[in-house]
């Protein structure tokens, strides 16, 4: 028997050329993977900023997109891990339920909007409205985040190793925000909070999960002052 050439990548890695295969067939193939699939490693090449790549996944698979993506990559993700080896367009990981999205580059606006669970990791910066209306997702950003982030955030944790822009946590509910750097301004009803041991533990866990080497004690916690939870005319000026 002649010797076989060594594999260039893991034996079970499936590669899809998005430009050749097209979006519909690509997503259809990924959606067809069941909970017990042994084809767990997928690579998408030539994404060329396409929208809705690997959205609606619901299986324990790992998809690596080799390049930058357009809107809604990994949207409504369940169970899967989506790695973006580039920058990510608006609404990446919107309404994520579980699983993980890791962005090697920067993320555009509305990152993880309305996410209910799972983890989103950004190794670069995230733009405005990061974590808008978050409902349980955890988002960890190594760089900075833009203005109006976590607007109306309901639950989950937003960790920022750099700085936060204007109006952080405006009108938030029970979401927690941990910022290591500066916060340009806090939004309505968002305030600085005491960092208690349980928060340090949550923060440490998230930093570890994201693979970021940062000291939790350097962060400040922010959250809802809960003054706007029930309408009071004396608070109308807050808007």
């Amino acid at each position, binding site marked *: 028997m002649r010797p076989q050439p060594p594999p260039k990548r893991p034996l079970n890695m499936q590669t899809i050329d998005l430009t050749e295969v097209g979006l519909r067939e690509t*997503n259809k193939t990924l959606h067809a993977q069941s909970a017990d699939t042994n084809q767990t490693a997928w690579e998408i090449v030539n994404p060329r900023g396409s929208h809705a790549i690997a959205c609606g996944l619901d299986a324990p698979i790992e998809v690596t997109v080799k390049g930058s993506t357009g809107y*809604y990559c990994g949207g409504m993700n369940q169970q899967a891990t989506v790695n973006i080896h580039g920058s990510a367009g608006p609404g990446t990981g919107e309404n994520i339920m579980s699983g993980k999205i890791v962005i090697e580059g920067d993320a555009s606006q*509305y990152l993880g909007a309305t996410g209910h669970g799972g983890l989103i990791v950004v190794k670069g910066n995230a733009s405005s409205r990061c974590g808008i209306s978050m409902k349980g997702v955890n988002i960890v950003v190594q760089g900075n985040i833009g203005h109006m982030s976590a607007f109306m955030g309901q639950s989950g944790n937003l960790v920022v190793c750099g700085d936060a822009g204007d109006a952080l946590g405006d009108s938030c509910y029970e979401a927690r925000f941990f910022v290591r750097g500066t916060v340009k301004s806090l939004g309505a009803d968002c305030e600085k909070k005491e960092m208690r041991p349980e928060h340090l533990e949550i923060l440490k866990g998230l930093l570890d999960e994201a693979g970021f080497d940062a000291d939790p004690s350097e962060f400040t916690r922010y959250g809802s002052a809960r003054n706007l939870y029930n309408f009071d005319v004396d608070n109308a000026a807050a808007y």
Partner: protein
Amino acid sequence: MNKHDEKGIPHTTPRQSATFTQDVNSDIRRAAATGIYDIRGGGAKRKVPSFDDLLFMGASISRYPLEGYREKCETSVTIGGLHAENPIELDIPITIAGMSFGALSGPAKEALGRGASAAGTSTTTGDGGMTPEERGHSNKLVYQYLPSRYGMNPDDLRKADAIEIVVGQGAKPGGGGMLLGQKISDRVAHMRNLPKGIDQRSACRHPDWTGPDDLEIKILELREITGWKVPIYVKVAGARPYYDTTLAIKAGADAVVLDGMQGGTAATQDVFIEHVGQPTLAIIRPAVQALQDLGMHRKVQLILSGGIRTGADVAKAMALGADAVAIGTAALIALGDNDPKWEAEYNALGTTAGAYDDWHEGKDPAGITTQDPELMKRFDPIEGGRRLRNYLKVMTLEAQTIARACGKNHLHNLEPEDLVALTMEAAAMAKVPLAGTDWYPGKPGTGF
């Protein structure tokens, strides 16, 4: 009351102001006492030009009618065949509009499902997600995709027979909702991922898209997640119907749901309900014009809502170009909302049967717009479903009666030519002649 003063000079008749009416004055007193604007449910209560201002002409020597109960008049409608693999097939063109679990009780949602399914039509979820009661009892269920995304999850999305992206609703174009703390029960709080008992605001814009170009991408994402199987509707308020319809079609919608200002809401500011938006009669022709200009009339379906009450309203909407209608408030009344049998309790709440609109307070005597377990017990979902089915059947029979009288063997064959208007306003809005004339304001070539 003395008719003369102490010197014998007659008093003038006490005269109420047409500007400062008793209604207005009570609003001022309420505002002065509370410091909060009035929040209520329902749609516009003011009188606006409506389908009541239109009449069908019926058959004559130049048109011959169809025999009632003998010659067939079809009522079916297919929605969403343009892009979806599985369009929605309905027996009747009257659907149930989106109403949330939270605003309505679980049993009320169940009754809507039972009644609609028995009548061969669809129901729609609302701002609170999909409940098992509703999915279990609705043969065809439209899943609303709302700005708040409360309860939004992909598992429910995939269970839906159609998806309705809500951009606006007729009661409050450009506005979000408010569910006051007393209706945020444990179950509602859990579904919406909020603390119990707080005032819950529903966002007025989608968090992850703005404008028609983004909408096109959002529709692509929803289609990809659901495998291009189910139709995607776009619901807009009656704000700028020509442009909104055009942009929804351009973005790839399978159907456009257009909601006039008489369309109800669970709760928003009274000033919003009464002063923002356009009457249902005014919005249909521009929307149909947009569909026709794009060659999409009858390909992209138009579902009209906002104050539809009778088979006559259904027939008029369809004659003006709608493919179907949706009812919300009327369905609640069919279930038993605002029924005079609860008059004593309505009185205790400072109102009267027919006028009760504080649905957000959760004290509905009829047990429909409430999360109070004791009040909910008053409402029987099986009986409610039966009543709704009856009502939908009656509306359909009424519409068929009119269509046959106009010589039409399908409700879709009704046309503007079958109509006249009773008022100048209605003639201008519906673009049908003022009764007794061959003219309407704005008719091309007439110099107005």
